[in-house]
């Protein structure tokens, strides 16, 4: 009797599992954004949620859980029940950099990568009154004096990218941390620092009005928005960097749910309306599947590890 009930329950559980994956999602999917509302990650995730609801007739709720440089919200999603109903915005800082610095209760390998749908391209820009105005002048200046380069926070993605470039180019820089990129930008336009890492959206209007001067793009190839700005690669420095907009979740989701979600990211990334809205916001819409996304992240993990080691920040908060 007990055995029969057991078997029945097991069978029921199995079919329920299968059925669950087939008509996933049955209830609202929560999308954790580990930053406060209104930033660029938050805004693009809200567009993702809109598109998701339009394409799949399911609900997707954005939940902002800021704090600890994105570590608190990311931790919540990585430790959530792996049923596919709690996902997070995969952000570079909390996934690739924070676990290396320490103080997080998750590691890189605890993250399930689902898919990437956009990247935030980055430029190095010279600030107002900087003693250089192009790539060569910048490198030349750095030979005599370390340029002061503002970033969005100690141990944040911007600091790592500036330091990683300096490493690759063989120059010395002095990183000046600010509380967020908007503060760094204020100091840059005010001429209180020499240079900073900015997104195309942040740099476009400012460089047109002469408040900033683009030095180089952190991509393999030149970008449409700044056709006259060289890449570091063409200047002979093997360095690229961008931050990403993707979806991640906890490890342990069942195969069918995971496959469904991965396909959903692909469909969202290829949706015309989605592409247009995100492009207007200054994002670079591009799809990468889970494997490519994870490989990209793993590459950056290694870059970050060597930069942090040099800065003596590896495991600093453990």
């Amino acid at each position, binding site marked *: 009797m007990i055995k029969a009930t057991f078997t029945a329950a097991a069978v029921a559980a199995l079919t329920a599992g299968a059925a669950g994956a087939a008509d996933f999602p049955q209830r609202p999917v929560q999308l954790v954004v580990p930053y406060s509302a*209104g930033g660029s990650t938050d*805004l693009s995730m809200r567009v993702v949620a809109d598109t998701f609801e339009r394409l799949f007739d399911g609900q997707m709720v954005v939940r902002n*859980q800021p704090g600890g440089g994105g*570590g608190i919200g990311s*931790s919540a999603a990585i430790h959530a029940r792996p049923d596919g109903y709690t996902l997070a915005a995969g952000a570079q800082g909390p996934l690739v950099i924070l676990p290396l610095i320490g103080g997080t209760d998750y590691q890189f390998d605890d993250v399930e990568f689902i898919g990437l749908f956009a990247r935030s391209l980055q430029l190095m820009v010279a600030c107002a009154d900087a003693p250089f105005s192009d790539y060569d002048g910048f490198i030349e200046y750095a030979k005599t004096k370390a340029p002061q380069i503002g970033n969005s926070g*100690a141990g944040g993605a911007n600091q790592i990218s500036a330091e990683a470039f300096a490493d690759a180019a063989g120059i010395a820089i002095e990183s000046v941390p600010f509380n967020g990129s908007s503060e760094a930008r*204020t100091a840059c336009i005010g001429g209180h620092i020499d240079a900073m890492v900015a997104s195309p*959206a942040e740099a476009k209007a400012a460089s047109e009005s002469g408040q900033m001067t683009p030095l180089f793009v952190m991509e393999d190839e030149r970008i449409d928005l700044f056709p006259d700005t060289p890449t570091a690669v063409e200047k002979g420095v093997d360095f690229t960097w961008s931050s990403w907009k993707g979806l991640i979740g906890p490890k342990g989701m069942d195969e069918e749910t995971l496959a469904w979600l991965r396909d959903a990211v692909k469909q969202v990334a290829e949706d015309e309306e989605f592409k247009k809205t995100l492009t207007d916001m200054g994002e670079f819409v591009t799809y990468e599947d889970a494997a490519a996304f994870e490989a990209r992240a793993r590459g950056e993990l290694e870059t970050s590890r060597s930069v942090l080691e040099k800065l003596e920040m590896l495991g600093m908060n453990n």
Partner: protein
Amino acid sequence: MDTIAFLAPLFAPQVLLTIALGTFGGLVIGALPGLTATMGVALLIPMTFGMSPVMGLNMLIGIYIGGIYGGCVSSILLRTPGTPASAATVLDGYPMAQKGAAGRALGMATIASTIGGLIAAVVLATLAPQLAGIALEFGAPEYFALALFGLTIIASLSGDLLKGAISGLLGILISTVGADPISGVMRYTFGIHGFASGFAFTPALIGLFALSEVFTQMERIAGGEEPIKSVSGRWPTRAEMSESKGALIRGSIIGTLIGIVPGTGSGTASWIAYNEARRASKTPEKFGTGYAPGIAATESANNAVCAAALIPLLALGIPGDVVTAVLMGGLLIQGLAPGPMLFQTNPDVVVGMFGGTFIATIFMFIFGMALIPVFSRILMIPRRLLAMSIVVFCFIGAFSINLNPVDLYTMVGFGVLGWGMQKFGFSQAALCIALILGPLLESNLRRGLLQNQDNVLSFISTPITLLFLGLTVLSAAWPYISRAIVRDRATQHQ
């Protein structure tokens, strides 16, 4: 003139209705403790995707203006600052409500917010590009000097200088919890993951002012004392208005100037305005006892910040505070990059936003005044019930900001701390100011030293730093100076 053509779209019925809805929504969000103007603007940004730029952006401006104003409602009625911008309003607003003048206190706050908002809006519309240049002059040494000046408020707010200094230093100590702003090293988190970015400010504020008040009231209720509240009308008396004139003008100017400097915002502005009003007053001892000019100063300043913070945003592409940073996101979504070019490429949007600031301020006045009797009813709720509901609001408010359970412990911890401080005569306001200014002071001191190879002299190198450091010295010495003046007069009269 083109300006008139650019303003015309604002008066389309659906645009007016949208601004009105935004302002009303902001007012409600601001009045609920824990829900801030920032959150309101951010949450409603997706709604503006499909709107025309002038309509969408002005709805957000309405939420911003309404939200900053709305904070005064719970500050005055419940001693719970609805937003950090209204923390200073608690000082005189709540005692006034206690004396049965809740309606007049709310009326004063509404009038002050309107005047502050309108003055700053005039400045925005006429001098934005010229004034924005000031914002660019602020580097680390300037911010440091400003924060230091702000901290001297503590001296004049505390009756007992020693206890005030203790509260202030405790606040600065508490504000160092979390990641070090320059090196990123975790400090005083005791391995608790949720403290990685320090004690969250709004939960701390809710605990410090609201929960502590519930504790105090519970003691009183247990003692059997239950005062019956009367709520006065809504218009301040003629005497109150004439006493508040100076505070209103000074608050509006201070709010406008602080608003233009990015990274400071309405919390700082309202405290500084309060202090300056008190210092300039002939009867400084009345501040903190339910004195209308106290409300006039803080509320005119915090609403002046709204329009003023748009100045660097529109003229330079630099957000003046957190809400305008979110607004900048709203502009970018519309494909408009804020900055000097915007005045040339999209004058219609710039003029439309200037106009929207005025319209939203007027709506704020109308709604605020109309709702005073409704809000005041809250005080008719029996004390016991009210106390219980405030506790519920405290928990919801503290949790809803970051969804971080640690914030609940923060709120309760600060509640107990605030209760103890009140009991033993330590100033909660001093602690609050230190929590706002401590991080500004520390990070800019450290950044300034880093950028100038540890050369301390760089902190007295520019006219702005000298101005603020001079004000700091003057402000710290003021109690002695004013006493000397009084003594002088007394001897002359003899």
